[in-house]
């Protein structure tokens, strides 16, 4: 390991190997660039190690456990028990499969991987701190993808029993009582999962609804399922402080009427948002400016105020989602390789792996009304779909929102089984400027959940087949 002042030259340097960085590195290498990627922790970033992948593994295990614990199919009797340590072990094999996949992909694309923490020392140079020393790297172009970390609240400092999403994903047992502070998608996904495994869960939410960014009618179906597991939801409630006791933790909060309350639990899970990792990488030394919110300022090509440095993913404005990070990663890599790419999407889907699943893309009805005045809306219930009925999963609906003037789809929301997969067609539809008529005239296979997309479009056109016109 080189210590000190020998400077290595790299063509493209990527800092951070999450879904933004590693995708950018691969694309840049594919386009002929010589690429080096630096990460201070595991390849795959938050997403593969402490985010999307481990959470979805636990969610699918919990779902499987639940489906066998209480068979939804008359005539099929099932029983289930679990060994949480083994579930966690399996989750880790899923994570390892994905991260070693990233390692192979980087290798296969001849990307040079360095383990270490990078910070800028000059507009075109970083220092990488490693276990046994440090290294200087001078770059022609740099892609910054350092991601984000959980917000820690002053009055709820992390500790043995006050944990963030990373801590919750690493628990070696299922807590008896779990309090989740923050009912956003991460809090709900994790809270519902532990509730399925048997935790008594309470959710403390500051706003007047959990999952406040989603349609109220969608959220109602998730709340219904949470009730099944005796999850208590306190909305308009403000966490005040915590006190760790010998064998637990006490949380005090103000409930919606302003009364101070105390709740005891084994763990308090704080999921109140994430903050960008922009504070310890010497951005000022590289002439990289931040927005008021502490995010990196970028143009349409993901270029920062330093023309040789690009930034992508959770550290730049926009929804903090893995697929947005990857998309931007490709754009930045292509721009560096001389292609005329820009960030030019019409929509970014967002999916919550709650039970039932929720997914949304483009505008909601209210947003579309503001934007276009008149809108055409088509809503179709799972209960009227043959496949959903045969799956015994009839809770849910699909809603399409179109600009009334020209019929072009501008938004869609889905809640129900497989919402995460149904949303794909609707994202493509929006990107293609498909109209409701385009969707209604596209033959969808019977009996599939996709038929609901076609039928919702017919409802929007005023010609529903499988529901009575209102």
């Amino acid at each position, binding site marked *: 390991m080189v210590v000190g002042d020998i400077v290595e030259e790299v063509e493209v340097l990527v800092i951070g190997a999450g879904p933004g960085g590693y995708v950018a590195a691969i694309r840049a290498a594919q386009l002929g660039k010589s690429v080096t990627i630096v990460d201070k922790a595991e390849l795959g970033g938050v997403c593969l190690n402490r985010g999307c992948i481990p959470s979805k593994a636990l969610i699918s295990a919990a779902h499987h456990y639940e489906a066998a614990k209480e068979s939804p199919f008359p005539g099929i009797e099932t029983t289930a028990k679990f060994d949480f340590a083994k579930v966690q072990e399996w989750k880790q094999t899923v994570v390892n499969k994905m991260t070693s996949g990233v390692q192979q992909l980087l290798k296969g694309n001849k990307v040079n991987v360095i383990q270490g923490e990078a910070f800028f020392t000059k507009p075109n140079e970083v220092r990488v701190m490693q276990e046994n020393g440090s290294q200087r790297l001078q770059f022609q172009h740099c892609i910054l993808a350092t991601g984000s970390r959980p917000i820690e609240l002053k009055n709820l400092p992390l500790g043995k029993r006050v944990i963030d999403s990373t801590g919750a994903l690493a628990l070696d047992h299922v807590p008896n009582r779990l309090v989740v502070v923050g009912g956003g998608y991460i809090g709900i996904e994790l809270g519902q999962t532990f509730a399925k495994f048997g935790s008594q869960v309470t959710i403390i939410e500051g706003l007047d609804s959990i999952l406040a960014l989603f349609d109220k009618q969608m959220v109602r179906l998730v709340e219904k399922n949470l009730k099944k597991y005796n999850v208590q939801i306190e909305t308009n409630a403000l966490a005040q402080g915590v006190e760790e006791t010998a064998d637990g933790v006490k949380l005090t909060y103000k409930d919606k009427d302003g009364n101070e309350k105390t709740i005891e639990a084994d763990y308090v899970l704080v999921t109140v948002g994430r903050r960008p990792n922009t504070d310890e990488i010497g951005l000022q030394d590289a002439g990289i400016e931040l927005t008021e919110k502490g995010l990196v300022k970028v143009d349409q090509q993901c270029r920062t105020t330093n023309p040789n440095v690009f930034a992508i993913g959770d550290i730049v404005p926009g929804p903090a989602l893995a697929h947005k990070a990857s998309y931007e990663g490709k754009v930045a890599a292509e721009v560096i390789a001389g292609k005329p790419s820009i960030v030019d999407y019409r929509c970014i889907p967002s999916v919550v792996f709650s039970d039932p699943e929720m997914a949304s893309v483009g505008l909601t009805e209210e947003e579309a009304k503001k934007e276009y005045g008149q809108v055409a809306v088509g809503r179709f219930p799972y209960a009227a779909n043959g496949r959903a009925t045969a799956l015994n999963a009839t809770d849910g609906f699909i809603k399409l929102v179109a600009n009334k003037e020209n019929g072009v789809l501008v938004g869609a929301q889905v809640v129900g089984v497989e919402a995460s997969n149904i949303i794909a067609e609707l994202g493509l539809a929006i990107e293609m400027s498909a109209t409701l008529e385009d969707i209604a*005239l596209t033959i969808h296979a019977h009996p599939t959940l996709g038929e609901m997309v076609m039928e919702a479009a017919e409802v929007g056109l005023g010609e529903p087949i499988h529901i009575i016109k209102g």
Partner: protein
Amino acid sequence: LASHGAKPAVMQAERADGVKRRALATPHVRALARKLGVDIEEIQGTGPVGRVTEEDVRRFAEGRMAPRPPE
């Protein structure tokens, strides 16, 4: 096999039939062409990869666009 000999009105469960080489246009644009009484196959598309757009159909229907030269 006797069954193969006896060929009544046998319908195999056919797989999806093919995508024919036809004008590139979305279902909505094809429907619009029918409403306006024009043959979409005659229209020279101006959209990406030669897609016939809604505007192409309207212009063609109003006689503001020449038919596509025979290939």
